């Protein structure tokens, strides 16, 4: 391809990489990340040469459809998968290989946490919400007694859960409230980076707006950095500063979120953009060029 667009991933050099952290050391840097499953003829490449940076306190969107490798990337970041090649640097230290020892696992837990899509399956249905949050606080900070209770209430307040809800079981809460619990649980370890993997996709629109506002407030108050994975371009626009677009395991475009969405350079980003229903939309008008 002979494109001169600096934003296109294939034309990337280090100076042009616009998701690079402006000045200072990025909180998260990923370089040449690759993950394959299976061997020989059955080898499948899930993530192929992915590189990006996330500024401290920043918010990076990862956009892509099913099979694009966005979730595999997230799993490598939190250490659920070991990269086949490439490097993951979290807060200045190499974390490419998943931690093995308990001490290292907990240290990584205080660095990076994740919130999953489905608030119905990611909570223990027999554990009260307050106990669920307390467990994380005790594990990471050794608090007990009234100090522990105070911290749990504080976490509840941070995400808008009251004492009554902290005493409840997950089944007594709505989907939006459960997702608040999942966010509070992730924040209980006081991580520097929070991965949100389609964390608002399963919520009703009116609740989704509440959670997006909540996430914006938390970033502002706590300075926590986000990796926000979503297929929803409007949500990406609202909650991220920079974005990468993934397809078939590769980054096809990256840059400031506003630039990527307003003037997409890659044909696939354009297709994604045009596939979103809007006034005057004709479904299927944008023929899919399958490669």
């Amino acid at each position: 391809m002979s494109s001169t667009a600096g934003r296109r991933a294939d034309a990337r050099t280090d100076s042009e990489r616009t998701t690079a952290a402006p000045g200072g050391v990025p909180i998260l840097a990923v370089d040449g990340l690759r993950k394959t499953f299976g061997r020989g003829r059955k080898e499948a490449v899930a993530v192929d040469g992915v590189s990006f940076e996330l500024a401290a306190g920043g918010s990076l969107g990862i956009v892509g459809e099913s099979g694009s490798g966005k979730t595999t990337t997230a799993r490598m970041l939190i250490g659920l998968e070991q990269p086949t090649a490439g490097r993951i640097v979290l807060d200045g230290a190499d974390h490419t290989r998943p931690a093995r020892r308990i001490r290292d696992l907990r240290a990584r837990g205080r660095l990076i946490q994740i919130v999953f899509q489905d608030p119905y399956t990611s909570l223990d249905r027999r554990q009260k919400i307050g106990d669920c949050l307390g467990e994380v606080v005790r594990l990471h900070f050794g608090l007990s007694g009234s100090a522990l209770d105070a911290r749990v209430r504080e976490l509840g307040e941070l995400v808008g859960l009251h004492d009554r809800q902290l005493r409840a079981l997950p089944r007594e809460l709505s989907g939006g409230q459960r997702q608040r619990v999942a966010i509070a649980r992730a924040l209980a370890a006081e991580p520097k980076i929070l991965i949100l993997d389609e964390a608002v996709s399963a919520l009703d629109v009116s609740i989704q707006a509440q959670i997006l506002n909540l996430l914006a407030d938390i970033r502002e108050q706590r300075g926590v950095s986000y990796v926000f994975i979503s297929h929803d371009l409007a949500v990406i626009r609202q909650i991220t500063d920079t974005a990468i677009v993934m397809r078939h395991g590769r980054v096809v475009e990256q840059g400031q979120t506003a630039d990527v969405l307003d003037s997409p350079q890659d044909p696939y980003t354009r297709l994604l953009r045009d596939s979103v229903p809007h006034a005057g939309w004709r479904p299927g008008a944008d023929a899919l060029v399958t490669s």
Partner: protein
Amino acid sequence: MSALLEVDGLSVELPVAGEYRTVLQDVSFSLDAGQTLGLVGESGSGKSMTVRSIAQLLPPGARTSGSITFDGASVLDLRGDALRKFRSRDVSMIFQDPRAHTNPVRRIGDFLTEAMRVNGRVPRREAERRAVELLAEVGIHDGERRLRQYPHELSGGLLQRVMIAASLAVKPRLILADEPTTALDVTTQSEVMAILARLQREYGMAMLFITHDLELAAAVCDETVVMYAGAMVEHQASSRLHTDPLHPYSAALMQARPEIERRVPRLPAIPGHPTSAFETPDGCAFAPRCRFAEDACRAALPAFERVGDGEYSRCRRAEELRGQLLVPAVVSHEEVVR
């Protein structure tokens, strides 16, 4: 000409923990051949329940009142063979999750030909030939290979096309599509919607299209009904819904949705959470979350009334508030303070 489908004053109660609870109240609309009507709403709004009532797929013990008329016949009175014929020939359903509605241990070919072989007594070879034709209609051109595959070997988008092919096998006059593209990627959604629109045009089928996505409804439906807590709150032409909503809930829903074109400092979220019909207090079900609510709104359930040509709203302030519903919320907060 009378409508193909006519729903009038439909209410449904379901037994929950030994007690009957209202899940749907006073739903009325009609649908002509070739027309698409969107039903939009959040959890508990009753949109799926409406569709299940029409297909007579309500849970056991459900109590229904009102009437559903299809091509002049009362659907709620259909029993036995007549009901079976209605479900198998006249209407087809397409669901959100195709994987939950296919048998994982049976091949695509069995799935597609079963109805023809059992209901139509078509020989296997003939049924398979027709199945391949049907797959071609939904853009699957290697049909013979697909017939031998199992559901897990197909992607979500491909499997949903198989579901559409299956629902078209009988050339139904009405399609009930319950969030058919919600589980699909946006590019796949676009293709599947294009296929549905084309087939609907070619066969002149009517479609009841359920979605939580107002933009999608506006793009593919002639008219849209917005539902909240088991009741219709607004019904009008889809083309006007975005610029001239007739109910505060529809307006609030549109405003709460982030936009792809711009980032706002704060999304105008709707306080509280969506409720079901049986959880709502007296009066307007949306009043507790509505920024335009007055005391009178909480006193009695407003009627679903005509506010213009082909325009209906269940807001007692609909005419007074028309044109102001999309004005940013700050203004009305000042009003409240004053």
